[in-house]
């Protein structure tokens, strides 16, 4: 039966059992709580308010009783009003409290008693209040009477005052007379008689004065008499004094008699009758006695009130105590039930855990989890718990199935890995480059046989797991590496550094003369892949090519000597190809040769001549080169040069450069003359130079096999002709050139020459120097008039020339003078 329920059902059953005890405990606690609450409710709702109200009432009643005497003692209307209002407030409060008490505790006999007492108190206080009002009226009446007594006494005494004054005056006079011995006897007797008369007149006044004072004093005492007996006692002397005053009135001065009688009547009214002071005091005493009685009654009522309240409070107290006991009993039983339930619930929990959970569930779950851990750790042979019909049994069954499947999968994986590895090895072996794979710790993992034979033929340690550093160090020590010869440690450090931070492939020269290109690359996971290619053949071909290139360069350098530098540069820089092409350009052509070269060198040995000529040509070529001239050709001792191709600075600048070059050559010739004299050439060699500027055809001329870069045209002939016309050591230029340079260069016109092929004579100019250098030129004579033109440069003239010039000018002068004469 239980077996079929499964773990869920059985646990549910256990929890229901435990919960049943908890529900039982809650129900018991709830019952006890409700019982106690009921009792507390009864106390707070019924008993406490009524007890509190009773106490407040009692206190209030005491307060009223305490204030009440103040009513009776109040002597002014304002004070009475004040006290009366205070009592009114307290009484109202008392009645409110009574109403509250009646609401709180209905029908209790004590309450009826209290109510009667409060009503009595109220009635009593009202009566007291009325009484005090009466007393105040009586007191006011008495005080008014006393004021009147005072006024009457003063008025009465005022009437007798003048008599007293006169009597005193007489007495003083008599004393003075008695003292004055010198006074005449008759005068003394007269004074004495005056005194006697005054005394006689004064006696009734003095008696009146005495009696009025006695009446006043007695009446003032009466006003404060404490008992009716005292009052009656004072009446007799008062009446006697009054009778005396009436008797005296007959003896008073006639002028004052009426007023005196008035005063006596006033005294009489104050002594006897309804408006007398004794009557007022009697009324007051009666009122006071009544008041005392009422106060006594008040206190009695207050006490009975307090007693009733005490009984009420005591009843409430008893009831509260009884309720408290009842509540305590209920609480005790409730606590017992709750504690018992709690204990049973705890006990059943322990039993469920111990008997079922611990023994049946946890033990089997532990076995299952141990089996799982074993499988996870790879131990497929570990024992598994027996299968069962409940959840844990099914879990064990599932675990067994899982283990069997895992064993199968593992075997299959192992087979696949072995195949894949074999394929990789085959692939690596089939490539022509050497291949090696190092792991993160730089240990050799994999390499092909090409790698081993290419780099480390004969090195035995190439097994997987060998450290990279070990391999390279061994190969360096054995001299496999050209670079490492004599510096093994240094090279190993470099190699390791490069291995750790591989960049582009690089080439390594081996000890046996081979070149290996090495490409290394880091792979993910920290390893390094290295590929080694043999590039020895490639390297040798590259070296052959370099040798050929060097030979070609040397050839080119030799060739440069036979070509104009500009032409050479133009050709080798590729700007102008070597081909048959020409163009027309305005060039400045210069011809130079050595005057009488053949005659001068005739006697010289061939070697000396060659040396001299080469020296000369080298010097001139250097100057030409410096000034940017293109040297066309050397013909024996003659040189043909031109400006304007292949580079031009402009026609004018080219012409100027050419003339400056010619001047520089002439100057150099002067220097060279000194050198040559030293080596035995007596006659100085002098140079002739002709320059012309004109259009020419310039370019490569010749056949496909051989070409010359040169110029062609009549201008070349004219330049040659100018050179032949030029005096030795001079520079002769055509008008075209002169026109270009005249601003800068000082020239002198030499005359015209005829040139074959040119129809008109050509104007020639001898170049003197740069105008900047021509200091002497300033002394030249230059006059241009109509029909007269003189140009003379005496400084430049020789002595013969000067004579000839002087004769010519003298002839001109004679003819000019003769004709005039």
């Amino acid at each position: 039966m239980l077996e079929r329920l499964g773990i869920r059902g059985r646990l549910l059953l256990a929890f229901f059992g435990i919960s049943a005890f908890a529900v039982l405990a809650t129900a018991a606690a709830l019952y006890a709580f409700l019982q106690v609450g009921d009792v507390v409710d009864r106390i707070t709702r019924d008993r406490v308010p009524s007890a509190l109200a009773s106490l407040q009432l009692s206190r209030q009643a005491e307060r009223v009783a305490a204030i009440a005497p103040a009513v009776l003692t109040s002597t002014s209307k304002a004070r009475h009003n004040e006290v009366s209002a205070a009592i009114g407030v307290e009484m109202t409060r008392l009645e409110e409290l009574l109403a509250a008490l009646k609401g709180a505790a209905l029908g209790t006999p004590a309450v009826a008693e209290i109510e009667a007492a409060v009503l009595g108190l109220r009635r009593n206080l009202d009566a007291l209040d009325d009484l005090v009002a009466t007393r105040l009226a009586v007191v006011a009446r008495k005080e008014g009477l006393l004021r009147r007594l005072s006024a009457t006494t003063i008025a009465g005494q005022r009437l007798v005052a003048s008599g007293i004054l006169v009597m005193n005056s007489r007495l003083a006079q008599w004393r003075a007379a008695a003292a004055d011995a010198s006074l005449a006897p008759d005068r003394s007797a007269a004074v004495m008689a005056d005194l006697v008369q005054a005394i006689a007149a004064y006696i009734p006044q003095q008696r009146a004065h005495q009696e009025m004072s006695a009446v006043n004093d007695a009446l003032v005492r009466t006003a404060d008499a404490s008992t009716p007996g005292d009052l009656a006692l004072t009446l007799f002397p008062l009446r006697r004094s009054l009778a005396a005053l009436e008797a005296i009135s007959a003896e008073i001065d006639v002028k004052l008699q009426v007023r005196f009688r008035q005063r006596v009547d006033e005294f009489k009214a104050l002594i006897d009758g309804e408006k007398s002071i004794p009557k007022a005091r009697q009324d007051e005493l009666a009122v006071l006695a009544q008041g005392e009685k009422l106060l006594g009654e008040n206190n009695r009522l207050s006490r009975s009130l307090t007693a009733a309240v005490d009984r009420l409070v005591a009843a409430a107290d008893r009831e509260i105590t009884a309720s408290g006991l009842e509540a305590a009993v209920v609480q005790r039983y409730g606590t017992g039930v709750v504690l018992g339930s709690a204990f049973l619930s705890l006990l059943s929990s322990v039993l469920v855990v111990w008997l079922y959970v611990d023994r049946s569930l946890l033990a089997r779950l532990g076995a299952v989890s141990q089996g799982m851990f074993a499988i996870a750790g790879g131990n497929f042979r570990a024992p598994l718990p027996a299968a069962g019909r409940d959840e844990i049994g099914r879990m064990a069954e599932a675990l067994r199935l899982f283990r069997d499947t895992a064993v199968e999968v593992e075997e299959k994986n192992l087979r696949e890995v072995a195949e894949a590895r074999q394929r990789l090895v085959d692939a690596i072996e089939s490539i022509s480059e050497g291949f090696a794979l190092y792991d993160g710790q730089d240990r050799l993992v994999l390499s092909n046989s090409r790698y081993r034979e290419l780099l480390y033929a004969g090195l035995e340690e190439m097994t997987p797991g060998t450290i990279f550093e070990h391999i390279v160090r061994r190969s360096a020590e054995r001299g496999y590496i050209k670079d490492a010869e004599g510096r093994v440690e240094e090279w190993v450090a470099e190699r390791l550094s490069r291995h750790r931070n591989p960049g582009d492939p690089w080439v390594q020269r081996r000890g046996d003369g081979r070149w290996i290109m090495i490409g290394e690359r880091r792979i993910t996971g920290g390893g390094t892949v290295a590929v080694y290619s043999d590039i020895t053949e490639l390297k040798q071909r590259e070296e052959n090519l370099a040798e050929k290139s060097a030979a070609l360069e040397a050839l080119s350098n030799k060739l440069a000597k036979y070509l104009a530098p500009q032409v050479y540069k133009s050709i080798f820089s590729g700007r102008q190809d070597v081909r048959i092409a020409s163009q027309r350009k305005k060039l400045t052509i210069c011809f130079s040769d050595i005057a009488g070269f053949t005659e001068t060198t005739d006697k010289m040995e061939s070697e000396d001549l060659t040396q001299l000529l080469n020296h000369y040509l080298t010097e001139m070529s250097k100057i030409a080169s410096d000034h940017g001239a293109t040297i066309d050709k050397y013909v024996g001792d003659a040189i043909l040069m031109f400006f304007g191709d292949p580079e031009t600075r402009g026609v004018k600048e080219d012409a100027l450069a050419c003339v400056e070059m010619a001047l520089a050559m002439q100057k150099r010739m002067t220097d060279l003359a000194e050198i040559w004299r030293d080596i035995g050439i007596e006659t100085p060699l002098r140079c002739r130079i002709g320059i012309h500027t004109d259009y020419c055809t310039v370019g490569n001329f010749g056949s496909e096999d051989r070409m010359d870069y040169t110029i062609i045209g009549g201008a070349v002939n004219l330049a040659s002709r100018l050179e032949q016309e030029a005096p030795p050591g001079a520079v002769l230029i055509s008008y075209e050139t002169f026109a270009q340079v005249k601003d800068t260069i000082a020239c002198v016109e030499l005359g015209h020459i005829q040139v074959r092929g040119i129809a008109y004579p050509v104007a020639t100019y001898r170049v003197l120097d740069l105008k900047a250098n021509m200091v002497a030129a300033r002394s030249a004579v230059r006059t241009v008039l109509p029909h007269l033109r003189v140009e003379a440069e005496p400084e430049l003239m020789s002595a013969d020339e000067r004579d000839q010039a002087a004769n010519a000018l003298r002839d001109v002068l004679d003819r000019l003078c003769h004709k005039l004469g």
Partner: protein
Amino acid sequence: MLGVSSMHRIITVAFVALAALFICPARAEVLVGVSAAMTGRLAWIGEQGQRGAEMAVADFNAAGGVLGQQVGLIAVDDFCDPEQAVVAARKLVADGVVLVIGHYCSGASIPASKVYEAAGVLQISPGSTNPQLTEQGRANVFRVIGRDDTQGIVAGNHLADRWGDKKVAILHDTTIYGKGLADETRKRLNKRGVIEAVYDAYTPGKDDYSAEVAALQAAGIAVLYVGGYHAEVALIVRAARDRGYAVQIISGDALATEEFALIAGPAAEGTLFTFSADPRRNPEAAPVVERFRAENFEPAGYTLLSYAAVQVWAQAVEKAGSLELATVIATLRGQEFDTVLGSIDFDDKGDLSTQNWVWYVWRSGEYVPVE
């Protein structure tokens, strides 16, 4: 619960407050004080003042009071003493009077006026004649009797005119009133070219002045002007007549008291003094005088002046419609009042605009105007 209880309390408090409103006396009466010498030698003057003020207050109350309020009267005794006057004034101020009728002696009025000014109480004196009372610049002080500077002129002129060729003596009792009046008279007399033969002081309160009179007789004095109160003057007159010394005695307003004749006896006959025009003869005063006489009281001296003082105040209050001091003072200064003294008005100092001194002579125990 709390709410209901609070409501109860509020309602209770409200009832108590209402009750208090009804019980508290609305200002039932306006209090007026009268301060004079009620006992001693000047008791007769005090009686005059008190009776006058009482009658006036009773008359106003019978007619409905002042501004509809009843008037209450408090009388205090100042003994005609400067120090006692200040004490009496403080008592009246403490009782809450709005007006004081008094005082009568100048020596009492002057120090008391300072107390009244500080407390904001109106003072109207029916008897103090010393000029100083109104010369102090206290706005609250008025009087319904003339000043001694005018009384002195009348007396001085009389002495010069009638007795200029005789030996004149001037005595005073050293009080503010007595010395002040004597000096004013002497000033006038001297101004008129007459120099008194004797100028002297006597001590008040003595029983016998025979020695002073004997000295004057020896000096041959024919006329004696006394600045002092009636009791001493009566004793002096009596002493002179006892000696058979027929000196003419002349004095001031203090002699307007029946007691002068009671003390002096037959010697009073012929004594001259100056006083305000006797109000008993005014037609306006006739009913009042009749009522006094019905009570066997002769309204002589200051009686009707005191009555008039109350009248002046009551009329001023009615005209102003307020008891407020400043308003009442302004009304007193600006208006005329119909009194038992006739129609009167006040100048800016609080003195009567018209001061009329009349000569009286004692004949057969009564004073009568000099014909």
